[in-house]
């Protein structure tokens, strides 16, 4: 039955879809035939020609209507109507290209911004990690229930000793570790320059736990991960391509790292990437932890050197695993109560670990683009309401002629849909361009490589377009009072203050738009302010014309502290002698360059502290010229002397906050400090504070002579009165003259270095600011549009007022007030909403409160200023009206 049904209907349906015009002609002929037969029949009965024609028509009914009704029974009728609607829509839009281009442009910006952010969210936050069954993978960290100081946070790295205990204690997961922050000097070979490469130490099972198969060779096995095992290394795809020209025979060859031979056992696939809270994305080489790390590092309970990754066994959950390991860690803490040993375990999925730092900023950007999209919808709705207002007479006439209400509404919705679809097309293009830009400027962002546009993004844009069409179309439809056909036909000729209802709808739309813009502006203001604070943060030294570069001496060639001291002393002497160099010094870690290592110290002259307690202090090695070169002020005492080196290097200089913390009421000069190993140092001076990282608070710091306290790597700090970048090349040349196998890394000015650490904030504040300005411009032009329209509508009324003696500035004030009212309402709404939502950006702010009064006041002033600006022209025009001319219009 069913099948037979299709046999009959399908050919007909196809015909009615593809041979529409033929069908129309047939119908015309059929109807015409009917009339002709009727007429012929009547004539044959003796009726006159004309009489027969009239009779036939009378009994037939309205031929046009019959035709329409018959056509309505055809299938695909709906499609045909849609096509017709679209054609009408395109025609009406192209008749007012200004409106169309404006609306499509606005829509394009809104949809484009959202499509771009959507791609970012999908690529960065949602895309699964490129491992086998990534959902089972978790990252594990140590946790201090009592934060020791501001320098620590939760999700601490894991000490090697703790990890072995964890691994022994659980069967709920396969456990592996990685230590991502190492570097190797890759030696010069075959005419290639030496270079310094980021590398990671990992356990033998690291790659098998992740489920990563090598592109060439093999990955590590447990046998590689032993103290006495043969030295083995894995290469990243990029490094293999770049440095070894994709040599297919690389496996089994020997490369020299830190002047030690390593056998290449494999190359990882290009898709492989490990990135977590402690980095790893830049690593090019992987070696085994037990082979590389000192034995006491691997067994220490307090020296946190690793991140643990684990693959949960089927049926196990992360929280069960953490409970289990926390108990283990708690027991360790009981046995080793030192403050450096953690007392808990924390964990999260690997995906969360990789994207944690970007979640808040990306979601805030999403909120910002969402706001922009809403503003855009309201704006387009406003434009459409305005258009409907100018076309109200047309609609009224069409309705009076029998145009169905639904039909007219559908036309309107089609129009808004057309705008949105064109906008979506443009938006996708804009999004594509924006993503290209994003990927090129934010190479530092984790997982930036997985951002791409695909069908889902297109689908998203289509969905956004549909939503916008619905919102803007519906609003504009509700704005037009279809039922009052007669009223709108009458209104046009007489009323002098007409169109009020529509204007009030537009004003409401405007107030909401302005509200959203205010929220955006406040958010952007806070971010920009926080960024400014960040940029102007004093890291403790004048940052202009200071160049830093890092050198580490490979242990295989420079074996003793004497070798290190000799090399560095020779180098710094040559650098100081260079023309253009004002001062130069050496330091283990320059201001803003990072944590750099810490040590527990106690004061010898003070009563002994309970076991395990002391002052946790950042440790720096510096040469005698460092304080002068960095311009760190010497507050009391003296700097190091040239002779205080090697065995005589037991003197320290304290930073001001360290001196204050350890010697609150006394002069520290001449006192002594002791570390846990019992080494005693004499305090010889106090210098100003510097920051170890630009966004982090000052931490107490202690300087020791860099010659003789186990420093085999150092940062050269060079200050010049001229632009200092020009000195980089000559200094690098010196280094290669002294040792052609020694790479120089991280060559940059301190200004560049701080800019690099604030690039997140700069980027976020820039993007949100851009959105805020788009919002503000849209809202202002919207305001201008509404007011200009109102003035045009009230031309007659204003003419009468002026003719009756209203002063021109009164008229100006009246119109201004009319326009500013929605702006003020919107401003108040926006400020209220901002006040309740800005706490969500608190985590992104530096030195700025979410309710920063200056930002709020600034936004209010900016908004009122732009509102006045937008209102001024229409108001001024109204006040200049010539009453005679005004009364004659209409």
């Amino acid at each position, binding site marked *: 039955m069913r099948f037979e049904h299709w046999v009959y209907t399908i050919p*007909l349906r196809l015909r009615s879809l593809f041979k529409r015009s033929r069908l129309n002609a*047939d119908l015309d002929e*059929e109807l015409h*035939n*009917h009339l002709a037969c009727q007429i012929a029949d009547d004539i044959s009965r003796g009726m006159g020609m004309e009489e027969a024609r009239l009779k036939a028509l009378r009994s037939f*009914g309205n031929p046009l209507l*019959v035709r329409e009704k018959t056509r309505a029974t055809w299938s695909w009728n709906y499609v045909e109507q849609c096509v017709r609607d679209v054609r009408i829509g395109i025609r009406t839009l192209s008749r007012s290209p200004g409106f169309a281009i404006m609306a499509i442009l606005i829509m394009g910006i809104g949809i484009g911004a959202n499509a771009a952010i959507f791609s970012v969210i999908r690529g960065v936050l949602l895309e699964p990690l490129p491992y086998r069954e990534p959902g089972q993978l978790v990252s594990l960290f140590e946790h201090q229930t009592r934060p020791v100081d501001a320098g620590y946070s939760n999700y601490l790295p894991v000490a090697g000793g703790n990890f072995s205990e964890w691994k022994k204690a659980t069967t709920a997961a396969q456990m592996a570790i990685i230590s991502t922050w190492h570097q190797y000097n890759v030696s010069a070979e075959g005419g290639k320059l030496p270079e310094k490469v980021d590398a990671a130490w990992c356990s033998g099972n690291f790659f098998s736990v992740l489920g990563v198969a090598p592109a060439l060779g093999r990955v590590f096995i447990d046998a590689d991960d032993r103290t006495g095992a043969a030295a083995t290394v894995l290469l990243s795809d990029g490094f293999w391509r770049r440095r070894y020209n994709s040599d297919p025979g690389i496996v089994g060859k020997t490369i020299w790292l830190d002047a030690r031979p390593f056998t290449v056992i494999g190359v990882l696939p290009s898709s492989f990437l490990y990135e977590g809270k402690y980095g790893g994305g830049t690593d090019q080489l992987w070696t085994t932890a037990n082979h590389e790390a000192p034995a006491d590092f691997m067994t220490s309970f307090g020296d946190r050197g690793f991140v643990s990754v684990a693959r949960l066994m089927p049926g196990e959950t992360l929280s069960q695993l953490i409970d289990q390991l926390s108990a283990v860690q708690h027991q360790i803490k009981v046995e080793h109560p030192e403050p450096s040993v953690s007392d808990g375990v924390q964990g999260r999925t690997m995906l969360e670990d990789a994207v944690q730092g970007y979640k808040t900023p990306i979601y805030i950007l999403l909120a910002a683009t969402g706001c922009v999209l809403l503003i855009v919808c309201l704006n387009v709705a406003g434009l459409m309401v305005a258009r409907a207002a100018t076309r109200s007479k047309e609609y009224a006439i069409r309705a009076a002629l029998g145009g169905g209400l639904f039909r007219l509404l559908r036309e309107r919705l089609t129009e808004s849909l057309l705008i949105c679809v064109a906008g979506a097309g443009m938006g996708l293009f804009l999004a594509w361009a924006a993503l290209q830009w994003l990927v090129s400027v934010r190479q530092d962002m984790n997982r930036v490589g997985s951002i791409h546009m695909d069908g889902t993004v297109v689908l998203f844009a289509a969905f956004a377009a549909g939503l916008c069409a619905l919102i803007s179309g519906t609003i504009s439809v509700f704005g037009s009072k279809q039922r009052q056909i007669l009223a709108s036909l009458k209104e046009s000729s007489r009323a002098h203050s007409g169109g009020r209802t529509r204007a009030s709808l537009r004003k409401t739309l405007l107030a909401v738009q302005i509200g959203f813009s205010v929220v955006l502006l406040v958010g952007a203001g806070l971010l920009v302010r926080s960024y400014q604070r960040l940029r102007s943060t004093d890291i403790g030294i004048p940052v202009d014309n200071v160049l830093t570069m890092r050198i580490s001496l490979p242990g295989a060639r420079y074996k003793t502290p004497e070798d290190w001291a000799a090399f560095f002393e020779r180098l710094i002497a040559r650098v100081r002698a260079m023309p253009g160099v004002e001062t130069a010094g050496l330091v283990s870690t320059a201001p803003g360059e990072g944590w750099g290592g810490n040590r527990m110290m106690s004061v010898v002259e003070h009563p002994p502290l309970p076991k395990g307690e002391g002052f946790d202090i950042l440790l720096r090695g510096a040469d005698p010229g460092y304080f002068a070169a960095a311009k760190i002020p010497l507050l009391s005492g003296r700097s190091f002397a040239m002779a205080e080196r090697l065995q005589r290097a037991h003197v320290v200089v304290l930073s001001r906050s360290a001196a204050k913390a350890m010697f609150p009421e006394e002069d520290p000069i001449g006192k002594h400090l002791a570390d846990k190993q019992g080494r005693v140092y004499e305090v010889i001076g106090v210098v100003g504070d510097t920051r170890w990282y630009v966004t982090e608070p000052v931490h107490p710091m202690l300087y020791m002579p860099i010659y003789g306290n186990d420093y085999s790597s150092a940062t050269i700090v060079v200050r010049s009165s001229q632009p200092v970048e020009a000195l980089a090349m000559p200094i690098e040349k010196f280094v290669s003259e002294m040792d052609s196998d020694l790479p120089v890394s991280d060559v940059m000015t301190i200004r560049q270095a701080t800019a690099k650490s604030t690039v997140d904030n700069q980027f976020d504040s820039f993007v949100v600011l851009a959105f805020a300005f788009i919002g503000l411009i849209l809202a202002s032009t919207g305001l201008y549009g509404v007011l200009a329209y109102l003035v045009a509508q009230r031309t007659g009324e204003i003419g009468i007022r002026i003719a009756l003696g209203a002063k021109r500035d009164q008229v100006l004030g009246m119109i201004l007030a009319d326009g500013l009212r929605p702006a003020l309402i919107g401003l108040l709404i926006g400020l209220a909403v901002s006040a309740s939502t800005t706490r969500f950006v608190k985590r992104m702010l530096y030195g700025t409160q979410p309710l920063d009064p200056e930002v709020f006041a600034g936004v209010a002033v900016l908004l009122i200023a732009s509102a006045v600006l937008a209102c001024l022209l229409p108001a001024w025009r109204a006040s200049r009206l010539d009453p005679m001319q005004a009364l004659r219009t209409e």
Partner: protein
Amino acid sequence: MSKPSDLVQGTLDLLVLKILALEPLHGWALSQRLKQVSGNVLQVSDGSLYPALHKLEQQGWIRSEWKPTENNRRAKFYSLTRLGRRYLEREAANWERISAAISGVLRLTEV
């Protein structure tokens, strides 16, 4: 255009199918036959026949074919499909049942 009574509107399909079951006809001839057999009781405007015909065709109950008429005009002849014939049988039976029931009710005498 006079409105046919609702009853006729609902049963127009049935009448058209029945007439076409007898022989294939074109539109005008069908309308003539309709008037003729119903003895002018059913006032159907000629025009309203066509939406009904096209609807039946879309549903697959009748099919159409352009053929010359007896006086050599080209006309669109409608004929019943097998599907239509079955549908007609079913609907006719239905109609019988319902009209019998209704007549039964109407024939009840008041007490």
